[in-house]
C-alpha cells in the first residue's frame, strides 16, 4: 500500500516537472526576444532534468515491486525505464496538476503559470528535502536551487507585466482569469498523498498553502494585481482526470516513441 502510494507520488512529481518543462520548451525558438527565449529554455531544461531523476526513481520502485510479485509481470512485459514512463503512458496515467498542462497562451499566461508553479515548488521542495524518503529528499535538495531562480525570474516578470503598460496589465488579468481556478489543486491532497503524509514521506500541502498565498500576495501587491476570491477550484489531474490540453501535448511529445518504439538517434 505504501509502496504503491510512493510510486504514484513519485510519478505525480515527475509528471508535474515533465509536463511544465515540455510546455516551456514549446517556446524555444519563439520567445519574444532571444535572451528570454534562452531563459525559458533553461527553465525547461531544469524541469526536465528534475523529471528524469524522479522517473528513474519511479522506474526502480516499479521494477522492485514487480520482482516482489513474480507473477504480476505478464509475459512480454518489460522493465520500466525513465523513457517508458515518459513516452509510453497514456493521459489517464499522468498524475500532473492541471495547472502545468494548460497551453502557453501569450507570454503573460506562460509567466503567470510559471510563477504560480515555481512559488509552489519552491516551498514544496524545501519541505520534501526534510521528509523521510531519502531519494526524494535528495532530489528535492538539488532542485530547490534551480527553482529559487525560476521563482525570482517569474516574480520579476509578473511585476514587470502587471505594473507595465495598460495592455500588459490587461493580459495578466486575462491570464489570472484562466489560471486561478487551477491553483487550488496544488493544495488538495490526493489519496496517495494522504497515505504518505501520515508516514512522514509526503509534504503536508495544507501547511504549504499559507506560505504560497503569502508569496503570491507580496508579488501581486508590487505588480498591482489583485487575487480573485478562492471560489470554485477545478481538480482531478493528480488522479488522472485531465483537461483537454494534456492529450495534445502528449500526442506531440510521444509521437516519435509511439510510432518508432525504442528508436534512438
Amino acid at each position, binding site marked *: 500500500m505504501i509502496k504503491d502510494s510512493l510510486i504514484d507520488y513519485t510519478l505525480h512529481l515527475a509528471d508535474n516537472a515533465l509536463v511544465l518543462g515540455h510546455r516551456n520548451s514549446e517556446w524555444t525558438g519563439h520567445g519574444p526576444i*532571444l*535572451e*528570454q527565449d534562452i531563459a525559458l529554455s533553461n527553465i525547461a531544461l531544469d524541469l526536465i532534468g528534475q523529471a528524469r531523476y524522479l522517473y528513474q526513481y519511479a522506474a526502480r520502485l516499479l521494477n522492485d515491486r514487480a520482482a516482489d510479485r513474480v507473477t504480476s509481470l505478464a509475459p512480454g512485459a518489460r522493465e520500466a525505464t525513465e523513457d517508458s514512463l515518459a513516452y509510453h503512458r497514456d493521459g489517464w496515467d499522468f498524475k500532473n496538476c492541471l495547472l502545468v498542462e494548460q497551453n502557453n497562451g501569450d507570454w503573460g499566461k506562460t509567466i503567470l503559470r510559471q510563477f504560480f508553479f515555481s512559488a509552489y515548488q519552491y516551498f514544496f521542495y524545501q519541505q520534501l528535502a526534510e521528509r523521510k524518503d531519502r531519494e526524494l529528499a535528495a532530489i528535492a535538495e538539488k532542485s530547490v536551487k534551480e527553482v529559487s531562480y525560476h521563482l525570482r525570474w517569474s516574480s520579476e516578470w509578473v511585476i514587470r507585466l502587471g505594473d507595465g503598460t495598460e495592455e500588459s496589465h490587461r493580459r495578466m488579468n486575462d491570464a489570472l482569469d484562466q489560471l486561478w481556478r487551477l491553483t487550488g489543486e496544488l493544495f488538495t491532497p490526493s489519496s496517495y498523498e494522504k497515505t504518505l503524509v501520515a508516514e512522514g514521506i509526503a509534504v503536508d500541502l495544507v501547511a504549504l498553502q499559507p506560505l504560497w498565498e503569502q508569496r503570491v500576495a507580496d508579488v501581486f501587491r508590487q505588480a498591482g494585481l489583485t487575487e480573485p476570491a478562492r471560489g470554485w477550484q477545478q481538480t482531478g489531474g493528480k488522479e488522472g482526470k485531465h483537461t483537454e490540453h494534456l492529450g495534445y501535448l502528449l500526442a506531440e511529445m510521444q509521437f516519435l516513441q509511439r510510432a518508432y518504439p525504442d528508436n534512438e538517434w
Partner: protein
Amino acid sequence: MEKNQNNERGWPLWEIFIRSKQGLDHKHVGSLHAADAAMAIENARDVYTRRMEGVSIWVVESKYVHASNPDEAASFYDPANDKVYRHPTFYDLPDELKHM
C-alpha cells in the same frame, strides 16, 4: 546612434563582463538586450553562464562605453613602435635573480 543600439522593442544594449572562478578580472564576453540593469544581469546569467563560466557578472549599458577611433590608430599606436628603450630589456640581470 542611440536608435541603432535599441532593438525593435526599445530595449537598450548592454555590455557583459564575467569573472570566472580562476580569473582575477572581469572579462568582456559579449552584449545583449535588456529593459534595465536587473534584467541585463539575469539575461547574462542565462546567456553567458550556462556552462559554469562565471562567479560574478558586471553589466554596463553600451551607450556609456566610449571607444577610441580606429581612424586614429596610426597616430595613437605607431609612435610606440621605434621606442625600444621603453621596454626594460637593457639591464644586465644578476645570476642570483631567478624567474625573470
